[in-house]
Structures are given as C-alpha cells and as structure tokens.
C-alpha cells in the first residue's frame, strides 16, 4: 500500500539509505573486498531507493510504467561513483502525466548526486526494433526490472525474446566492431602502464563483451572455447576490487589505475613486498595476468562465434589435422594422453605458416593446468630436443606461436624458468610491457630483422640462429629473482641447457649472450665510441665474430622490445657503427696486439699440465696476436704447444678431429712461402668445404693454422684409408715433395668441383691501411667456391707477399677472408696493392 510521505522526509530517508549503502561499499573497498558481492549489495541498495521513489511518485500517472536498469547497473555491478542507466518503459502514450512521473523520479535522483542516463520509451516503440542504434540494443542485453509494472516488463521481455533471431546477429557484429574501436583507443594493446580498468583491453568491458557474445552467438563452439570460465570470474573480481578503490581514492567516476593509485591499490589488496614499488609490481603482475586471460578468452570466443565454412580436413601426421582454423588434434583424448604431440602441433603449424586451432590450445591449457607436466614429458628423446631447437630457428610467425605456447602453458612447461617471469612487471618509465611479453617481442623483432636490408643478411648467415632465440627467451628470466639479473638469468639458463643436451659451444654462446646482453647498448649509447680504446675494449669481449653478430642482433631486438618508440633510427645507427667498428677491430685491427711473455705465463699458469713448462708456454705464445688467447681454450693451447715441439722447416705437425658437424684441422709449422696456400689446397683437393678458420704467425716464425671444414662428399667416411691418405698428402705437400697445383689441375676441370653459386655477386677486394700499424689488411668478399682460398692465397704469395694472419669465414654462399699481409716486412705500397688487386680480380673472374 502506498504511503504518502512528505518530500523532505523522503529525501532525508533516501540520502540516509544512500549514505549507508555507500558507507558499506567504502568499508568493503577499504578492506580490499570491493568486488562482485559488494557491488551487488550496493546495486540492491540503489534498487531499494528507486523502488521507494517510484512508489512515492506512482500517483503522477495511471499509465503502467516499468523502471528498468541497464548496463552495469543492470548487471548489479554498480561502482561507488558509476552512472546509473535507466529505461523508463511506458505502457501507453507519453503525455503530461507521464512526463510529470519522469521528472518526479529523476529530480530526487539528481539531488542525490546520481549521474543518471535515462531512456523514456513507449512499449509500442519496440514493435519494430531500431537496429540502427546498436549501443542501445546492447544495453538491453543487461535489462533488469527494478520497480514499476511487472506485467508491462514481462510483455516487453517477451517482445525482445521473440525478435531475438532478428536483432541478435546484427548487434553481435556491432559489438565486435565497437570492441575493436574501443581497443584502438588504447593502441590495441593491453600493455598500458596506467591502464583503464573498465574500458582498456582485457578489462571489465571485455569480460562483458565476452559474455554478451556467448549469449548472442548461442554457439556451443564459442562456449567450448572458454577453456576455464573461472578465469573470467577471477579477473572480474580483481578488476572490480581495483575499480572500487579508484572510485574511492578519486571521489569520482574515473577508472585509470595511475602509478600513484597502483601503490594504494596494492596496499589495500594486501600485496606483500619490501617496499611500495615491489608491492605495486606484484599488483600489476596480477593485473596483466587477468587482462591477458580475458583478452585470450575474448579472442577465442570471437573467433568461435563466427560460422565456419565446411572445408576438407587434411590429416597431416599422427593425430594431427589441418582444418580451417589451423592445426588441431584428430582425437582430443589421445592428445591429452600424449603431451609430446603438443609441440608437434606447433611444429606443423609453423611449417605451414598457420595457427594452432583454438580448440587444441584450449585442450593444452586445460590439461597442463590439471597435470602440471614437467619439461621432460614433452622432450623424452634426443630427437624431440633437436626438433625443439629447429622449431626455435627464426622465421615469420615464430613469436606468435611462442605467445600461443605461453598462453596455453606449454612454453612455461618446457621452460619453467621462463614461467617465473610470466606477467612480471618492471615498474619504470621505460618498460611498457611485462617481462615475458617483452621477451616474446624480442623474438618478433628478430623475425623482423630477417627482412631488414642491413641486419637480415647477417642474421640469415648465422650458423645457429636458434641460439639467439633461446638466449633471448632467457635473457631476462633473472628479473624474477633477486640480484644482478644478467648473471641470475645466466645461472637459470644452465639447467635448461642441460635438459636440452646442448653442446659446449652452444652453452658458451648462450651464456655469453645472456651475461652481456646490456653491454652493447651501454657502450653504444653511453660511451664515446669514436675513441679507439673504447672500441678495442668492447671488441675484446668477443672470442669470435659470430658472438659479436649475435650480441648486435640481440641488442637490436632487445632495445626494440622495451616500448614501440625505444629503438629509434638514431640508436640503430649508433649500434650499427659500434658493430662495424668492433667487427673491423676484430678482423682488421687485431694484428698489432701481441701477447707478451709475462701476460701469457700469468694467464695459462693455473691449469698447466705437468708435461709443459712455463717457459715453453711463454716461448710458444710470444709474438702471437693477443686474440689467440680469446679464440682458443687453455686445453687447446696446451695441445698447440705440444704440436710445436721439434717442428722443422719442411715439417708439419697436425691433428684432425671430427667435431659433430664439422672437421677441424690444426697444423703447426714454420713459416715459408705458399704454406697457407698449400695447406688450403690439400683440403680442396679432398673436396673439403672450408667454413671458417684462422692462420696465425708468431714473431718467431711459428705458424698455427686451424681450419674448420665440412666433408661434404663424406670422403673420410667412405674411404677406410682416407685419413691416412690425407695425412700423407699434407705431409708431402708441406715438405715440398708433392706439388698441390698439379694435383688440383685435373680436379679443377671437373663439373663437381665447379659448383656454381645460387646467387652471383661481384667480388669485393679491399685494402685497409688504417686499422693496423704493421699490416696491410686485405679483405675479400666473394662467392664461395671449391678451392677459392687456395687460389686467392696462391695469388697473394706469387706477389712475394707474406701472409701472417688470416681469418676465414663463410656465411651462406659468401666467403669472407681477411689477410694481414706485408712485403719485405712492411705494408704494401700503392702500386703493389694495385697489381695484387688486378691479379686477384682476374683470377676471380676466370674462376667464375
């Protein structure tokens, strides 16, 4: 029964009710409990106020009117300072009495300082739904009657249901468009340093959008794509609590979680940590975890809501098939039982440049969450581990696959150390992304480098680019723990490398890159790189040019992943110049840096074997370039010392080793004309492809040549006496008993020997007289070809030029050879250079 109450009394009562409700919500928020239940209680209290008001003003009209809540209020998720959206549904024509009703209802609400959004509509307006106003129709998805005429509301609800087949598909499309437009306002990324917890990607509005799509699509596939419905509820609870805190702190309807508010929210939600920054980082780590889960579910639901055309299913392997959505499992139960097949799905997707389908990702996510499989489950055999390394080779789409693997839990299962940085926040003004996202962006940057005119060729020519990706995956994992993160990351990479069974070279490379991943940017951006000593010191970090190249590419990828604007053309230029200067220092300028007796003894004394004396080591090393100590391990150096014993002019002491994919020939001899050319000639004669190597000459005339080569024709494997035959030829050629030119003459005519390169490039012959005080440095870049090194070095020797140091490298089909040369103990004169260049040019043209 309606009770007449004076207006003033009503207002006082309602203000008290509202104050009490707000007080309760504030108290809950202060306790860190401003989530779903608190907001529902607040919404209910506002319902009561509305009902009270409607009852008080009902006498203004005899027309039935239903007062309905829309939007967040309709969902009983009203925040402290939220607008309240109302639909006043009139069951007849709107005349003066109805207008009086509306005013009488709204004015007290405004007096209570509510921001009210209201629609006043006649029921007849809905005979034909206005599909050109999708926002209003979307708001109707959360329609809830609060007060007024129930029968009228039921009629309206019936109309909406009856016509849902007509308007639901239309607003589904509209919702997707509106969602995209909203995301664009946030640069389409959930990684916001100060996020909007209501409208930003991965926040409350996306949770609503996900649920609305599920309702509108009515598609069981969409529901199945929500791998864990609890995730959405957890995210909603967290975001509501945070939003309640923002409203409380700001005293108005704003939803941006600023830096300052992050610290308050962290304290309110009882995050622990040694200081405010750490507590805020922990809060933001949770924020990003939730936002990412919401984004993932929304994406899957959106894709699943679209009708899928019938397409043929292609079986592409054991329990794997290729469907329109990508690669999936033929039998889900079998896939759940054999986690090894999960990585196979990603391999299949990567090789076909398609995605792994959502249903397969959802299965992996559910199974990994339930079973927490250890890394070994996925990589039981050496073959599986090898396949993983192949999968990690840079290619287009790799980062996207790694992101999918991370999201479904497979990446964290394979690399538990990586899992520790999941959603980890580094709170400063430089890092825009969480640590794991930053890491995956570095991999995406590596993909982009592949097509870059300057960086692409270097990346493509690396012998094991997967090591770069693996180093990037681990370069920041140490940020999850205390201490210098470069060192901690390296320590954390060790167990991973053991699990993967990596060889020593790979381990050393990865550890080097992780430990030094900040060095190059520090030197390039903060030191005077025009100072030769700075470059020299930087170059001394590297044992090989490959390490320099890897660190350069890693730095580019790393800096570029800090935020979209961090790697400017300016910084790229500085890094490029430092790379070139260091590369030139390593290849052109290292000849002047000589090991002195005391230094050598000090460095190698510690692990000296009993059979080698300190003076013997010192004598061997004296006059060799200092770089030698970087190139070889102490064990290798001791072997070289032993080889050098009693070597004579016509003698060569050597050993040949099979090192996995390559062979290595180490020769110690005394310097004499054509020596280098003759040894490389022997390798060519036996069909060996020289891929890299060094020749070093000490001031005392001792020569150390190390060649790494590939036995492409498997000569050693096919000939039981092959090794002995090779040894004999080498000894005879060095002693001068056999003329290698004569042996090679017939061979050079054969078709096999004259393998044509896939791409022909004009050879580059360059003389440098700046980088070294002692040497003219000849740099030659040409198409690699059998016997090239032999022919080049022979032409050089024919000019009476001494070759003291040689660096040999092969990148793809390109040979890059650097010779440190003198004539008569001095640098080459201009005319001598010109004559040598002319003959080299002629020889290269004839060879081509």
């Amino acid at each position, binding site marked *: 029964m309606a009770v007449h109450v004076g207006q003033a009394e009503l207002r006082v009562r309602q203000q008290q009710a509202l104050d009490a409700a707000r007080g309760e919500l504030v108290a809950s928020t202060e306790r860190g409990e401003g989530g779903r239940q608190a907001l529902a209680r607040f919404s209910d209290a506002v319902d009561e106020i509305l009902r009270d008001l409607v009852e008080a003003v009902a006498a203004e009209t005899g027309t039935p009117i239903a007062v309905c809540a829309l939007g967040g209020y309709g969902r009983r998720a009203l925040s402290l300072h939220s607008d309240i959206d109302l639909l006043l549904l009139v069951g007849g024509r709107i005349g003066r009495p109805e207008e009086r009703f509306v005013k009488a209802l709204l004015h007290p609400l405004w007096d209570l300082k509510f921001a009210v959004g209201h629609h006043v509509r006649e029921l007849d307006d809905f005979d034909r739904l206005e599909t050109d106003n999708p926002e209003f129709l979307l708001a109707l998805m959360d329609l809830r009657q609060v007060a007024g005429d129930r029968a009228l509301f039921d009629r309206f609800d019936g109309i909406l249901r009856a016509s849902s087949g007509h308007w639901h598909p239309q607003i589904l499309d509209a919702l997707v468009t509106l969602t995209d437009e909203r995301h664009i306002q946030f640069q389409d990324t959930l990684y916001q340093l100060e996020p909007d917890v209501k409208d930003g990607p991965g926040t409350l509005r996306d949770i609503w959008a996900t649920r609305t799509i599920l309702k509108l699509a009515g598609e069981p596939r969409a529901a199945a794509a929500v791998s864990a419905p609890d995730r959405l509820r957890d995210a909603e609870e967290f975001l509501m609590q945070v939003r309640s805190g923002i409203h409380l702190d700001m005293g108005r309807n704003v939803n941006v979680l600023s830096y300052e508010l992050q610290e308050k929210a962290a304290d309110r939600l009882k995050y622990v940590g040694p200081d405010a920054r750490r507590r805020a980082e922990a809060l933001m780590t949770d924020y990003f975890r939730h936002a990412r889960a919401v984004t993932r579910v929304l994406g899957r639901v959106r894709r699943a809501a679209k009708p899928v055309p019938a397409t043929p299913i292609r079986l592409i392997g054991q329990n794997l098939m290729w469907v329109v959505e990508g690669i999936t499992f033929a039998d889900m139960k079998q896939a759940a039982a054999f986690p090894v097949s999960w990585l196979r799905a990603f391999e299949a997707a990567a090789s076909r440049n398609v995605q792994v389908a959502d249903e397969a990702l959802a299965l992996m996510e559910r199974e990994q969450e339930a079973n927490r499989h250890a890394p070994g489950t996925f990589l039981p055999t050496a073959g599986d581990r090898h396949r993983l390394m192949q999968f990690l080779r840079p290619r287009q789409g790799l980062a996207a696959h790694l992101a999918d693997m991370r999201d479904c839990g497979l990446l964290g299962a394979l690399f538990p150390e990586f899992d520790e940085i999941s959603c980890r926040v580094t709170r400063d003004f430089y890092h825009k992304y969480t640590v794991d996202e930053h890491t995956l962006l570095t991999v995406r940057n590596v993909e982009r480098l592949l097509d870059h005119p300057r960086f692409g060729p270097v990346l493509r020519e690396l012998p094991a680019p997967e090591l770069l990706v693996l180093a990037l995956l681990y370069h920041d994992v140490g940020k999850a723990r205390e201490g210098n993160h470069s060192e901690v990351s390296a320590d954390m990479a060790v167990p991973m490398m053991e699990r993967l069974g990596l060889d020593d070279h790979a381990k050393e490379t990865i550890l080097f890159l992780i430990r030094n991943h900040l060095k190059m940017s520090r030197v390039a951006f*903060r030191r*005077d790189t*025009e100072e030769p000593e700075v470059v020299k010191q930087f170059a001394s970090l590297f044992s090989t040019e490959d390490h320099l190249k890897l660190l350069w590419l890693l730095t580019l990828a790393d800096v570029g992943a800090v935020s979209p604007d961090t790697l*400017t053309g300016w910084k790229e230029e500085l890094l490029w110049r430092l790379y*070139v200067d260091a*590369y*030139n220092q390593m290849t052109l300028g290292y000849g002047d840096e000589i090991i002195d007796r005391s230094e050598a003894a000090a460095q190698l004394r510690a692990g000296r074997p009993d059979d080698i004396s300190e003076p013997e080591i010192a004598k061997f090393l004296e006059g060799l370039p200092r770089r030698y100590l970087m190139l070889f391990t102490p064990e290798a150096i001791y072997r070289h010392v032993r080889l050098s014993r009693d070597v004579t002019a016509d003698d060569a002491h050597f050993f040949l080793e099979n090192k996995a994919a390559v062979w290595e020939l180490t020769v110690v001899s005394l310097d004499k004309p054509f020596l280098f050319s003759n040894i490389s000639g022997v390798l060519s004669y036996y069909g060996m492809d020289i891929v890299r190597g060094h020749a070093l000459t000490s001031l005392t005339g001792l020569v150390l040549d190390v060649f790494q080569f590939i036995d492409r024709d498997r000569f050693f494997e096919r000939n039981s006496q092959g090794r002995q035959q090779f040894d004999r030829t080498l000894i005879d050629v060095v002693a001068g008993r056999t003329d290698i030119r004569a042996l090679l003459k017939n061979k050079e005519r054969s078709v096999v020997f004259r393998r044509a390169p896939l791409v022909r490039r004009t050879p580059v012959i360059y003389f*440098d007289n700046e980088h070294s005080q002692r040497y003219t440095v000849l740099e030659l870049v040409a198409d690699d070809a059998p016997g090239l090194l032999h022919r080049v070095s022979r032409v050089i020797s024919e000019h009476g030029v001494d070759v003291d140091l040689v660096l040999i490298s092969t990148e793809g089909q390109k040979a890059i050879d650097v010779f440190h040369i003198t004539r008569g103990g001095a640098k080459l004169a201009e005319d001598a250079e010109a004559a040598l260049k002319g003959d080299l040019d002629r020889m290269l043209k004839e060879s081509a």
Partner: protein
Amino acid sequence: MKLIKAIVRPNMVDNIKEALGKMNIAGMTVTEVRGHGRQKGHTAVYRGREYEVSLLPKMEIEVVVPDPAVDEAIKAIIGAARTGEIGDGRVFVMPVEQGYNIRTGEKDVV
C-alpha cells in the same frame, strides 16, 4: 630567462646533467638528433664496402635558466662536454619571454 640549446656527443649527456645538477638546474629536455658541423662524418668500411656516414648521431639538450645563471650554465655545459676533438658540439643561447607551469598555471618568476 634564456633558452640554452646544446648539441653534444651522445655520451656526454650524463656529464652535462651532473654539471647542471650541481648548479641546481634540474629540468632539461633531451632529444636524439643527427647532424654535422665541421665534423662532416666519415666513411665506414664494412666487409670491404664503404658506407658514407654523413650525419652523425648527437644529443640536443635544452635548458631554460634565469639570466644571472646563464654564463655559469654555459661554462658547465662546455666543461662537461669537451674532449678537445672536432665534433664536441655547439651551444646556442636564445631569449625566452615567458614560461608557465602547466600543472599550476603559475608564471615563472625570474
């Protein structure tokens, strides 16, 4: 008030910041720029090929200081940025009519 604009070597920014900090000049704007003065770049050679490096990376520092502090600030910048080699950079000084704090709307008093 004067606007001091200094074009300096990239690695000198920290030195300059420290030198100005000692004068209690804390606010500055730093921009990555490229250019050349008398130091017209050089040729870099990589794998036997020559690359012209005509515009060199530099940093531009802008700082607004009260008139009485201008000379000392210039000295501090030059002292912190000098190596004695070509390419150390330039300092320019320009008058500033007014300055405002956007947050408070207050006019700078000099």
